[in-house]
């Protein structure tokens, strides 16, 4: 049987992708950020997951305003790299796991989640920057990916509680997949940031660190946090944090924190990163 072994959260700023792609990871500005991922790169090289269920949001790349899915799961063999206005990132295409993805969408819909099934889409920095942070610059990604795209652009995103319950349902579905697979679930986006308007540049260290704490110590507080609190405290784009709760729900009740990192700034954004172990001893 397939099993979820670990979870990763990380912010996914486009400028991080550009720094990697343009060889600027050692500069004074960027070196402290990338140092925060050194431990995780060694860890994942040892863990060697077969599949990452990668919860991210599309940033007006695959989804225009014509059709805006709340939860979309990608069932394609392969996902091309989106051109976000300055050419596609020079990274390998993302290889899917259509059989697991088909199993997930069927299981989740029967489990009362109103999933949008996607058979073709491009993926943007929301999905590829986390891959680059954990795997560097390989010729091919060493893992297959099931993309789970969450709408956080048009208000309202799904509630934190709904995201958490989706994670729990993903856990139930993975447990009934017959093949023996080592599956990780990643939740990306956040932490505090606002990218528009006079309040652009807002960063809330106190909020962010409490969020990092409570993902393992007071999950109830995060599950019941209303959208307005994210918007007031973490900036309008900080509401991406709800996606971390999908990851957390997928790990089950007991988790062990393995690694934690927090850094300001990456361009306009606070970067938070956690690695959580879900293996039941």
């Amino acid at each position, binding site marked *: 049987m397939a099993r979820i072994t670990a979870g990763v959260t990380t912010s996914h700023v*486009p*400028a991080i992708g550009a720094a990697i792609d343009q060889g600027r990871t050692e500069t004074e500005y960027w070196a402290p950020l990338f140092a925060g991922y050194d431990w995780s790169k060694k860890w994942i090289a040892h863990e060697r997951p077969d599949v990452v269920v990668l919860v991210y949001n599309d*940033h*007006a*790349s695959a989804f*225009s*305003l*014509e059709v*805006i899915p709340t939860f979309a799961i990608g069932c394609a063999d392969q996902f091309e790299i*989106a*051109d*976000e*206005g*300055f*050419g596609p990132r020079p990274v390998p295409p993302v290889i899917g796991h259509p059989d697991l993805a088909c199993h997930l969408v069927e299981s989740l819909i029967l489990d009362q989640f109103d999933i949008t099934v996607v058979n073709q889409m491009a993926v943007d920095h929301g999905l590829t920057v986390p891959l680059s942070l954990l795997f560097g610059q390989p010729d091919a990604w060493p893992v297959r990916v099931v993309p789970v795209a969450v709408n956080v*652009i*048009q*208000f309202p995103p799904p509630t934190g509680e709904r995201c958490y319950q989706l994670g729990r349902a993903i856990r139930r579905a993975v447990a009934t997949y017959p093949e023996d697979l080592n599956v990780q679930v990643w939740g990306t986006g956040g932490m*505090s940031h*606002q*990218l*528009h*308007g*006079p*309040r*652009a*540049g*807002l*960063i*809330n*260290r106190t*909020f962010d660190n409490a969020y990092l704490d409570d993902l393992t110590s007071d999950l109830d507080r995060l599950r019941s946090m209303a959208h*307005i609190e994210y*918007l*007031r*405290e973490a900036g*309008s*784009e900080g509401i991406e944090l709800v996606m971390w709760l999908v990851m957390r729900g997928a790990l089950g009740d007991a988790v062990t924190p393995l690694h934690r990192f927090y850094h*300001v*700034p990456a*361009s*306009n954004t*606070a970067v938070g990163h956690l690695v959580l172990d879900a293996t039941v001893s």
Partner: protein
Amino acid sequence: MKVHEDLDDIPGTTVFTAARSHLGFHLNQFCMSLMKPENRERFKHDEAAYLAKWPLSEAQRNAVLARDYNEMIAQGGNIYFLAKIFATDGVSFQSAAASMSGMTTEAYAQMMLHGGRSPEGQRSIREGR
């Protein structure tokens, strides 16, 4: 347009609701078209001619031509769509954010290096916190 008292109470922030999405539909769809390099070239070659192909309001069209991002947002634009315009211009997200907050790129960059904009006083207009 539906009233959202809480959402409208956040200083300097425009939450992209379904009603704003409806208002800005064509403006944002124009932005999406800039994901193709050939469209970016066409737009750069003659902005007004390119914009004429989209049923934009005059306020939307003028805001694009003036690169007035706060005005584009007031007219239904969403920052992730508008990002295709400044990407086409070769302007970084940080510079664009700086301009929206009325700061120079340098001053904004320094603010970010010093921990970003404080949330104090930026949470609620009516509660003054």
